[in-house]
Every structure is written in structure tokens, then in C-alpha cells.
């Protein structure tokens, strides 16, 4: 009798926390969904590809060359991943520094998106680095202080830590570690300030990386103001992602929502949409300023110029007005669709800078290989699965009943 009761207690914890209260066989059966099937296929192809990359080197799996040293993994996994994770510091600042408590319901999902976003950016970076085991070098003992990338490395490293600590209260609540959770909550305002500071630095510095490439980048995209463009587009992408992710989560993870805590997601969506609209408006004009500064008007009448105009009007000015119209007439669906389009627009911008405009006039332009694409998709899939795992178990979309408190 005694031995059985001893055995039951630790098993119950795993059932409750990890298997969400289901018996193991029931849990396994619940995993057979169409989405999981697709994800499993992606992982079945992608994980071996990643292992192959580490076994045989970058040349065996990518289309990178001596002329094109950076490709999809830097352009998408790193540059876009960091932009899409910007909702973390944006919402944290909104709620904790500017005191707009009405957005409180989306700050935890935004911080989680940010945290996971940055974790998987680092993973993507590790896949891209030629010697990933040397990643600690610039952090620990050899400091290339003249390098923008040094600053990016430090900021991303520290910010990962900040995001982890911002996410920690939710995990501690899940584990029931009350005292630790109280301690972690006290750090919130300091972490938020630190996080805004670090984010300002590295979001803009990712753009500043390209300041060294004036003759390698197409003049329409090259500008001394790239750091500002990257920072503002990160804010916009962050807001767009929060709108997009929150509307998806409230639909897909409905069971996680607290039925008594009526969250006015429509109002939050419209508020974020309004902020995005104003930022897009300003962003359009500072991009115009860059055009004026570089005196590149004549280039607008070239194929690259047409693509640039499409980016400006289709992905910046159009969502600006769609957001404004949607907010004004309270059309939340329009705002959500526009948010997804805006996020796509920021992805397009960063891919334009890093792949399309960079090295635009070399003899052999870079095109990603299928393994590169598969790897990026695999990393994103693992990120989404992790997000789902955490949201289904931890108090992200809802408040933990034991920790309800006035904010």
C-alpha cells in the first residue's frame, strides 16, 4: 500500500503538468491531428537535413558562395525572426511603462512570442554559423568592439536573458513555485526598461550591419538611415504579430481562455491597429526622406525601382490606410488581415535588404537551396510547436487562479 502511494504522487505531477491531466495513451492518441501530421513530416525531413548540414558543412546544403556569403538563414531566420519577436518589448513597454492596462491580456503571449522568437533566432544563427561552437568567443574573451555585429551579439544575448526572466513568472506559476514567482514579478519594470533599451539597440543594429555595403547594395535600399528603418519596421512588425497571434490564439486555444475574464480582444486589436497605422504613416515618410537623401529618384523607373515602389505603396502605405479605415469603422477582421499583410511586408523588406538588394548586381545572384528553405521551415515549425506546448499548459492566455491580483 505504502509503495503504491509513493509511486502515484510523482507520476501524478507529470500527468497534470505535462500531459495536461490525460493518461499517457490518451495523450498520445490526442496527438494525431492533421496539423501535427504535417509538422511531423516537416520535422522528419528537416531534422536530418540539419544534422547533415552540421556533418558536411555549409557548402553541401546551401547555395552560399564566396560572392554571396549570407542567404536565407540570415535574411529570414535572423533578420525577420528578430523583427517578428519585437512584440515582446513593445507590449511590455505599453503595459508596464506607459501604463495602458487594457492591453494586459496580450502582454504575456507577446512576451512568449518574443522569447521563443529570440531563442529560435539563436538556433537559426547557430545553424548558419560556420563554427557555432565559437559563439561564446565575442561574449567571453575576444571583443570586436568596432563591429556592429559585436553589439548585436551582446544585445541579443542579454535580451534573451531578459525575455527569459520576463517569461519566467508564467512558468513559475505553472510549477507552483510561489516565492520564486514573487521575486520574478518584482523584476518586471527593470526588465522592461532594460528590454526596451536592448531592443532599440539591436533592432537598429541589424540594419546597421549593412551600412558597410554601399556599393554592394542597390541604391534604392541602401541608406545611412537603415538602422532607423529597421527599428521602426520592427515596432510595426511587433504590433502586427501581436494582433495576428492574439486573434489566432483566441481561436485555436479557446479552451485556455478564462470564461469569466472577459477579454475585449476587439478593443485591443483596434488599439494596436491604430498604433500600427500611425507608425506606418511615419515610416512611409522617413523612407521617402531616405530617397531624397540618396537622390535615387531616377532609379524608380527600373525593374528594381518598380519593386521598391510596390514595397512602399503595397506594404507600407496600403496597410497604413487599411488599419486607419478598419480602426475608424471598427472592422476588426480588416485590422487582423491587414496585420498579417503588414508582417509579411516587414519580412519582404528584410529579405529585400539582405538578399534582393544586397549583391543585386553580381553575376550569379543568390537563390536559396531547398535544404535552406526546409531548414528555415523546420525551425519555424519547432518554434510554433513549442509555443503551443507552453500555451496549453502555462498561464499565458489566462490567469492562474492562484495568482489573480490587481495590476
Amino acid at each position: 500500500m505504502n509503495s503504491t502511494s509513493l509511486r502515484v504522487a510523482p507520476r501524478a505531477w507529470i500527468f497534470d503538468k505535462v500531459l495536461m491531466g490525460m493518461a499517457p495513451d490518451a495523450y498520445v492518441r490526442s496527438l494525431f491531428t492533421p496539423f501535427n501530421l504535417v509538422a511531423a513530416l516537416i520535422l522528419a525531413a528537416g531534422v536530418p537535413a540539419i544534422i547533415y548540414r552540421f556533418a558536411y558543412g555549409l557548402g553541401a546544403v546551401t547555395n552560399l558562395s564566396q560572392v554571396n556569403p549570407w542567404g536565407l538563414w540570415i535574411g529570414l531566420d535572423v533578420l525577420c525572426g528578430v523583427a517578428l519577436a519585437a512584440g515582446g518589448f513593445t507590449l511590455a513597454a505599453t503595459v508596464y511603462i506607459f501604463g495602458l492596462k487594457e492591453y494586459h491580456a496580450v502582454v504575456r503571449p507577446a512576451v512568449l512570442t518574443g522569447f521563443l522568437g529570440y531563442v529560435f533566432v539563436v538556433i537559426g544563427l547557430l545553424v548558419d554559423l560556420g563554427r557555432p561552437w565559437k559563439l561564446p568567443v565575442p561574449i567571453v574573451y575576444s571583443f570586436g568592439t568596432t563591429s556592429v555585429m559585436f553589439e548585436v551579439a551582446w544585445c541579443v544575448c542579454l535580451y534573451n536573458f531578459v525575455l527569459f526572466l520576463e517569461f519566467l513568472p508564467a512558468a513559475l506559476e505553472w510549477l507552483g513555485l510561489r516565492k520564486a514567482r514573487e521575486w520574478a514579478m518584482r523584476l518586471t519594470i527593470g526588465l522592461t526598461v532594460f528590454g526596451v533599451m536592448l531592443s532599440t539597440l539591436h533592432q537598429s543594429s541589424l540594419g546597421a550591419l549593412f551600412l558597410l555595403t554601399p556599393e554592394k547594395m542597390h541604391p534604392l535600399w541602401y541608406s545611412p538611415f537603415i538602422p532607423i528603418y529597421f527599428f521602426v519596421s520592427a515596432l510595426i512588425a511587433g504590433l502586427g504579430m501581436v494582433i495576428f497571434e492574439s486573434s489566432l490564439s483566441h481561436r485555436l486555444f479557446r479552451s485556455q481562455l478564462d470564461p469569466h475574464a472577459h477579454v475585449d480582444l476587439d478593443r485591443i486589436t483596434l488599439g494596436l491597429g491604430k498604433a500600427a497605422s500611425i507608425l506606418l504613416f511615419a515610416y512611409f515618410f522617413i523612407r521617402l526622406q531616405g530617397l531624397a537623401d540618396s537622390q535615387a529618384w531616377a532609379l524608380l523607373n527600373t525593374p528594381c525601382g518598380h519593386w521598391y515602389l510596390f514595397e512602399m505603396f503595397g506594404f507600407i502605405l496600403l496597410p497604413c490606410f487599411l488599419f486607419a479605415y478598419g480602426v475608424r469603422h471598427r472592422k476588426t477582421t480588416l485590422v487582423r488581415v491587414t496585420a498579417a499583410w503588414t508582417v509579411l511586408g516587414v519580412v519582404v523588406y528584410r529579405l529585400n535588404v539582405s538578399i534582393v538588394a544586397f549583391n543585386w548586381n553580381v553575376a550569379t545572384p543568390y537563390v536559396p537551396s531547398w535544404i535552406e528553405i526546409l531548414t528555415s521551415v523546420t525551425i519555424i515549425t519547432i518554434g510554433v510547436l513549442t509555443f503551443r506546448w507552453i500555451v496549453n499548459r502555462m498561464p499565458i492566455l489566462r490567469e492562474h487562479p492562484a495568482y489573480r491580483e490587481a495590476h
Partner: protein
Amino acid sequence: MELSRRKFLKLAGAAGAAGAALAPGAVHASTAIASSRGCGLLIDTTRCVGCRACEAACSEKNALPEPALAGDARVFDVKRTIAPRVYTVVNRYGDPKNAASVRYVKTQCMHCVEPACAAACPAKALEKTAAGPVVYHQERCLGCRYCMVACPFGVPQFEYDTAAPYIRKCSFCADRQAAGQLPACADACPSGALQFGDRAQLLEEARTRIYQHPDKYVHHVYGETEAGGTSVLYVTDVPFERLGFRADVATTSYPAMTQTALSAVPFVLTLWPPVLMGLYAISKRREAVSRGATGESESHHE
């Protein structure tokens, strides 16, 4: 003409010694530039005969494979670029059937005065030394390839074909220089096309040559201002664009382009905390005021 490798080196040694003997004398006669910017290499394409002794010497010194088609002129039929196992190449320009139009140009790392690669490297794996060479510390390298993005000359070569890749490039024979020797290529050159010395003095030498033969040379020393100045300097009698030189390299130093962005960092680090905490204090105060006005404690609605 087929030369064996040993013969090359003998000739090269003789020529190099002669050149070294000549150079200081020629330089002393000119006005010295006040601050020396380290060593330099003056490449005069009018003197290069395409013997590729420099390639052979370089590959031997760096334990690289022998240069392709050594001694065979057919190697010039295709333009070659530097590669992870080829630190320097000599290419032929002009029409091979018209001997007078043929020029040979040696390409390698330019060892910029303010190198973009060294400024770009987050781990200081590429480092500009005071003596002049931009050296590579392979134990620090992450393989991030930002140096390749930054270098306007496309110099750093990445070992894509291995799982533990390094960056490879000419090191200006920094170890030989430290021992008081010439770089291997300069040592081996039999025709005096490669002249090693102090950069400032070589610049003077180059300008002197142009001044003394104004109709022969193009009135420009390539490397004087390119990328803010490089240690390797070129003079030619044929326009540089016809010899495969990049014409779009900026004349300001590359590191200077990122300095504005980097110099903002300390300001963000200093100003953001008080600004953000100030905003926080304002929002807290407004909350307190509105709470005081309604006379009720803030209750949790959501």
C-alpha cells in the same frame, strides 16, 4: 619558357635582394611622409611579366597546393579568383595575340589601412596590426562571414566544403615581416613588379614614377584612397577598369560608415533608462491621481 620551381626561387631571390637594395635608396631621396602607416606593397603592372613566381612562393610558404598549371601559359585563358586554398592569383588582361596589349595583374588581400573586415569581425579574429598586415586568428573565428559581406574587394574566402571551416586570405606574411624578411611574393618577384616597404614611402615612390613618366602611367595610385587607403598600391599604364580593378570602391574608410551608428550606442544606454523611468513615473502618477479622484481602490476588472 618553362622554369623549374627551384630556378624560379633562385632568380626571385636574386631579384628580390636587388630590389630590396634599391628600394631604400630610392625612397630616401624623396620627402618622407610624417606618420608611417605600416608596411606596404607597390605593384607596378608595367613590370609584371606573368611568371607567377609570387603564386609559387606564396603556396609554398603557406603550405597550400601548388598553383594550377604552373609554368603553363594556358592558365591565363580563364580569369581566376582567389580561393580558400589560393591566396593570390595573377591574371592576364588584353589580347594574347597582341603582346603589347598584355598586362598581368596580381590580386590578393589589400591590407587596408582601415580594414572593413577587421572592423566587422565581432570576435576580432581579423585584426589590423600596427605593422600593417591584417592578420587572422583562426581560434577566434565564428564563421559568421560578416567579413565577407564587408570587404569591398571580396577577399576573405570561406571554406564551405568542410564542417569546421575557416576564413582564408593572404596574411602579408606577417610572421616573415616580424622576422625582418620580405613577404614571400615580394621576395620571389624577379622583375621588380612587387616592391615592399613602408607604405608612406611607397606612395611617394609611386607618385614619383607617375610624375617622371606622365605619359606612361595612369595618373592615379590605386589604393591611395580606395577604401580609405590600402597597404597594397597599384600603378598601371592601362586604365584600371580594363585590368579588372573595382571602380566603385568608396574613398572613405569602411569602418567610418558604421561609426555613427555605433557611437549612438552609449547614448541609448545612458538616456533610455531615465526617459523610460520618467514615462513610467508619469503614468504611475496619472494612475494615482485618477484613483484618488474616484475615491475607490483600483479593482481588477478583467
